[in-house]
């Protein structure tokens, strides 16, 4: 697959279809992270393996990267869903980006452990991409129903959390969020946190204090989760980046689970879909909206 990817990248650059291929490369310390191939000669540095955990879609809205010109981007199935959300929300012209979807057998985290998100994944064969590398038939389709995904013993941490009595769950979050240092790394690495001015950065007046106190930490993390409700694609970028080791995925997935079970909405799977939070339907069960 890596060779196929390199060939494709070379071709796209040679034919001047794109100015940059955003993919994965090997860093000096042996870790795998973003690599920007801007000419054919660099394409042999593109890698594909189970360490390609980072969600590169975040780079598409970075001003420094936009300056490079038209981009092709290497995405896994989960990352490709973020691309759909960005396009649905008017953050990019989908046809201006070439998405190279990698058929994915799962990735590992910083410590070499298989990521929890891969256990419940239904997008190993990437959808809504322009090129597919790998054989989609070679990977399992994943759990068929939301039930199986969220309550089938696959995302153990999430299930454990949801099974806790309310008060216990609250205490657990209090303890976890108390470690937050208010660095905003979770926001910076999130492909869907693209606001030019984040509400957390507003200081005239201050909406959320910048202090890492229990109340401000709660305000910040709950606010971010709300802003991602029905939008988070579960790529796990925030959890991986958090210097406080907070399982932010659990916060966002709780909402994703609700979005799916209550509204049948799975973020980033339907191009052109209206955002769950920003739309309503006659069929909504709350009467106040009718």
């Amino acid at each position, binding site marked *: 697959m890596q060779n196929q990817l390199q060939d494709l990248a070379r071709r796209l650059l040679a034919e001047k279809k794109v100015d940059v291929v955003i993919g994965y490369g090997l860093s000096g310390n042996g870790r795998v992270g973003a690599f920007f191939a801007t000419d054919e000669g660099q394409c042999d540095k593109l890698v594909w393996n189970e360490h390609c955990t980072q969600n590169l879609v975040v780079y598409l809205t970075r001003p*420094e990267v936009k300056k490079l010109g038209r981009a092709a981007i290497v995405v896994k199935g989960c990352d490709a869903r973020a691309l759909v959300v960005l396009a649905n929300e008017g953050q990019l012209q989908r046809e201006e980006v070439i998405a190279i979807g990698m058929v994915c057998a799962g990735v590992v985290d910083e410590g070499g452990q298989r990521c929890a998100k891969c256990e419940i994944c239904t997008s190993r064969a990437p959808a809504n991409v322009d090129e597919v590398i790998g054989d989609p038939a070679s990977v399992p389709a994943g759990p068929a129903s939301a039930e199986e995904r969220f309550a089938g013993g696959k995302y153990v941490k999430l299930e454990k959390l949801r099974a806790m009595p309310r008060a216990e769950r609250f205490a657990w979050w209090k303890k976890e969020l108390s470690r937050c240092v208010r660095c905003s790394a979770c926001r910076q690495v999130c492909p869907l946190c693209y606001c030019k001015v984040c509400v957390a950065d507003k200081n005239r007046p201050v909406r959320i204090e910048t202090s890492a106190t229990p109340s401000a930490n709660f305000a910040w993390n709950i606010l971010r989760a709300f802003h991602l409700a029905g939008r988070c694609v579960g790529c796990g970028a925030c959890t991986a980046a958090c210097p406080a080791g907070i399982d932010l995925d659990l916060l966002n997935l709780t909402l994703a689970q609700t979005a799916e079970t209550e509204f049948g909405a799975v973020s980033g799977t339907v191009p052109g879909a209206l955002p769950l939070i920003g739309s309503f339907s006659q069929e909504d069960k709350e009467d106040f909206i009718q």
Partner: protein
Amino acid sequence: MSQVISLADIRRLAADFAQSGIVAAPLPTDSGKVFYQKVAAEEVQNIVLDGSLKCVNSIKEFLFPRHEVLYTFLRKGNDVELTDAPVFDTPQLILGCRPCESASLPILDPVFAWDFNDRFFQSRRAMTTVVSIACQKADSDCFCTDVGGSPENTSGADAILYPLDGDRFEVRLLTEKGKVLFAGKTTESSDVGHACEGPKATLDTAKITRWLNSHFNDPLWSELAHQCVGCGACTSVCPTCHCFDIVDEGSYQKGRRVKNWDYCQSALFTLHASGHNPRPDQGARQRQRITHKFAIYPEKFGAILCTGCGNCSRLCSAALGIKPALEKISSEAAEDLMPVPPLWVRNTQDK
């Protein structure tokens, strides 16, 4: 003759200390990652004393907290009443940190005692005893030996532990504080502990400094600008990063002035009220972090502002952090031996 203590006795010592003081030591979170955390007396069993362990965060939190109240204010008619935050006076024990963590403390001392004596840092420093543990395993992100450290660097530590077999440790007492802490707690032995072999040193930091001083504008910065997403995670886990922001919180009538960690990788760090940002892109921010550590700080305070702990690289989602950047600089610097212009010239160029 060496001094030896058992793991059980170290736990007991920590539990005793926690009765009237603060103990900070490696403790796993629910997700299994290990952080330097405050340990309650009943939690000492969970402390991880392991020379191969790399905690995610750094010990700096206990000397330079991420959030600290400087003083409170209360408006009374036309008057304002100011109340200083109490001086930190609780004995504190940092137990089982890596040598590259303790080494950050003497590096940080001068910046908190330069044009202003920062009593917040200084009081914590005075109240703190640091017991490090000699490394038993370096990983691919470690580079202490490149910046003058080693797996048994004693800098900043009051005592250092060397793991022995059978859950025992050799203790080397380095300062008065260390001797007081372990007084009567160790037994004499002929067992001697060892540290692992350090990571192989490959970087020439003098060359890096020279390169930084003469490459304010360089394509490398834009290369890093693409890769780095400005998340600041590297600065928050860095034992030597020490930037903070001072803000007022509360209401017009009543509130507090606080000191919070700030992150040079964030766009907000240097944003002026006018909207102008002297560090307009991520390249400028990366240049700042690296130049501060390898050129500015050494010039001003005589020490590299990096202990080679690798915390930044271990965490960086973009596989960056400082070491990969230093390696890139290093390979460029090899071909480039421009002499360093004097400071006054550097201050006027690149305008």
